């Protein structure tokens, strides 16, 4: 702003606003900006999330916290810079009251400063970047998902508890791949015969599978999100290894990849905080209505997004629709006073859920639209906290 009069005017306006009585700021409508990936091969995740948000609105009768609600969806195209642009557009042009969504850690890390800079709350419904759980935790940031390390930690604990040895580890060669293996090793202390890092987005794993078979491991751990996992598992099954060496994974086999994996998924072990089979009223209602409305089984991406809208709903209710009262909203969200799809839970000091983790197994299920369900094999963690909360200076 080069014009001194404009600057002055803005200052006066800001001062006037801050003196405005609460009732004056009371609004008629709530706008939520929801960022996800809607284009490209990862667009299927965005579809799960968008469908879930729309179901949440339907369950709430079109009102969030009593206010008629509108959700503005934005596509980050799986790119941090685009995510930032979309966020700026939502905050400035669309004047959203609160932000939510975001699948990818790198998009979240880029976008969060923009949202916090505008003084708005961000409800992350997937990305589990460790800095946001630790040193860079933020009053305005809430997660309805998890920290990235927690799922591999649960799997590591399970492998440790069941006495698995000679583990073969495969992951793509980038930061998250290494983080997942680090999370696994935090609880798995047995022998690792090989740690193999492959090229990001690799299509063919025949060479890796040949090498794996030559080592004759007792179990295999993979982290291959999206298309990579579909490739790997299909080829693993084609190589005839499914019945020979049990395959454990995180963020690889879920309702977004099962339609492509089909029977190749059966027998897969995954660690996660939620599955469509989980037994609590909020989740049951969500899963049943979701299947009825869209004809497919929701994934955890969707469940977390549904949960995010419910969390916002509880906070807007608590401040009686005065969403400009950010402090009040934050205080209300910290209570986590809403029927969550994971069952009742508490937020940790870093605004990440303290929650249970399970090992799931993909089994045949004629009741599911896909014919396959992720059944709960075993509960691994009760009230599991992430590994970073101690680095977070936030106290409340």
């Amino acid at each position, binding site marked *: 702003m080069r014009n001194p009069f404009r600057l002055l005017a803005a200052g006066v306006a800001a001062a006037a606003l801050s003196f405005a009585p609460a009732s004056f700021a009371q609004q008629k409508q709530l706008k939520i900006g929801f960022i996800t990936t809607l*284009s*490209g*091969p990862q*667009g*299927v995740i965005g*579809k799960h999330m968008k469908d879930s948000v729309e179901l949440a609105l339907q369950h709430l009768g079109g009102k969030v916290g009593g206010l008629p609600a509108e959700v503005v969806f934005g596509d980050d195209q799986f790119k941090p810079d685009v995510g930032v642009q979309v966020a700026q557009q939502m905050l400035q042009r669309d004047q959203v009251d609160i932000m939510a969504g975001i699948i990818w850690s790198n998009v979240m890390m880029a976008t969060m400063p923009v949202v916090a800079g505008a003084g708005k709350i961000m409800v992350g419904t997937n990305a589990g970047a460790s800095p946001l759980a630790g040193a860079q935790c933020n009053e305005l940031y809430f997660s309805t998902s998890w920290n990235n390390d927690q799922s591999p930690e649960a799997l590591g604990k399970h492998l440790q508890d069941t006495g698995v040895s000679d583990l073969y580890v495969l992951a793509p*060669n980038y930061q998250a791949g290494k983080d997942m293996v680090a999370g696994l090793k935090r609880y798995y202390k047995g022998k690792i015969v090989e*740690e*193999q*890092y*492959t*090229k990001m*987005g690799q*299509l*063919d794993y*025949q*060479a*890796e599978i*040949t*090498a794996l078979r*030559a080592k004759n491991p007792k179990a295999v751990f993979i982290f291959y999100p999206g*298309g990579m996992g*579909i*490739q790997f598992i*299909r*080829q693993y099954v*084609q*190589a*005839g290894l499914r019945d020979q060496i049990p395959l454990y994974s995180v963020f690889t086999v879920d309702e*977004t*990849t099962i*339609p*492509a*994996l*089909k029977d190749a998924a059966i027998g897969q072990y995954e660690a996660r905080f939620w599955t469509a089979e989980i037994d609590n009223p909020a989740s049951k209602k969500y899963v049943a209505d979701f299947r009825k409305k869209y004809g497919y089984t929701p994934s955890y991406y969707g469940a977390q997004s549904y949960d995010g809208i419910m969390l916002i709903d509880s906070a807007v209710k608590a401040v009686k629709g005065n969403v400009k009262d950010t402090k009040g909203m934050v205080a209300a969200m910290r209570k986590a006073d809403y029927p969550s799809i994971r069952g009742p839970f508490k937020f940790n000091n870093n605004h990440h859920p303290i929650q249970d983790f399970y090992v799931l197994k993909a089994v045949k299920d004629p009741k599911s639209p896909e014919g396959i369900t992720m059944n709960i094999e075993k509960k691994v963690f009760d009230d599991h906290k992430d590994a970073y909360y101690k680095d977070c200076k936030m106290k409340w």
Partner: protein
Amino acid sequence: MTFALVFEQLLNGIQLGVMLFLLAAGLTLVLGIMNMVNLAHGSLYMLGAYFAISAAQWSGSFLVGALAALAGTLVVGMLTELVALRTLYQRDHLDQVLATFGLILFFNELVAIFWGRTALFATLPAYLAGHIELFAGIRYPFYRAVVILVGLLTAIVLWYVVTRTRLGMLIRAGASNRTMVGALGVNIRLLYTVVFGFGAALAGLAGLMAGQIYTVQPGMGELILIQVFVVIVIGGIGSIRGALVGALIVGVVDTMGRAFLKPLLGAVLPPVTADTAAPALASMLIYLLMALVLALKPAGLFQARG
């Protein structure tokens, strides 16, 4: 590291090389003869995979799917040439790159509209599934062995067509001096359309075979296209023989790098360093190779044009 393991990895490398060859053969023909940079070649590969899957699911027969993939990509290739690419021959390479990049976006969205964004997967027919026993207890997936055979057969057929038939003579002539070929009364426009169609069908064949192993999804063509360009640069632009040799070299080097670089590095470096260096180096290997070839033989291993 036993002999059997090395041999099996070698087969894996050849199989990858054969796939790359099918794509590179079409692309190098178009690049060498028409002097046309066609980034959308990967889209034809993608369409081949989609046609194969859809026709196979509709008819229940893998062979019908294969025919649909070949015929479909041939037709789409020729149509694309007639409608879009024909206007680009006289333009410079930047215009061609821009236009064919636009075609990539067009085809990706088109596929997403028709088939959706969710990845598709073909199921191998029973007679192609399973393993074959080679010597020394090596079990190799039967389908991948078939891919190698089909690829090598195609290479032989291509060699025959290019060196022993009239069409091949025109193609070679077109690669050396297209103005002269036109001046001698050959319908160069028709020749271009035919060549482009065949190139597209080769890409379709690659897509058809890849579709049985890889995820079939919008954008799958671009993932492999970069490697194909590496093959062409190594082999020499416009040379079928170069495409075959380049593809096999790239396939084998890439696979061997992924499989054996880490144990090799581990023998000389501390394990932690080897862990980080090996995957990084393995994914760079084919580009290093390309740089080496460019430094020693800037026109590629087999030069086609004078």
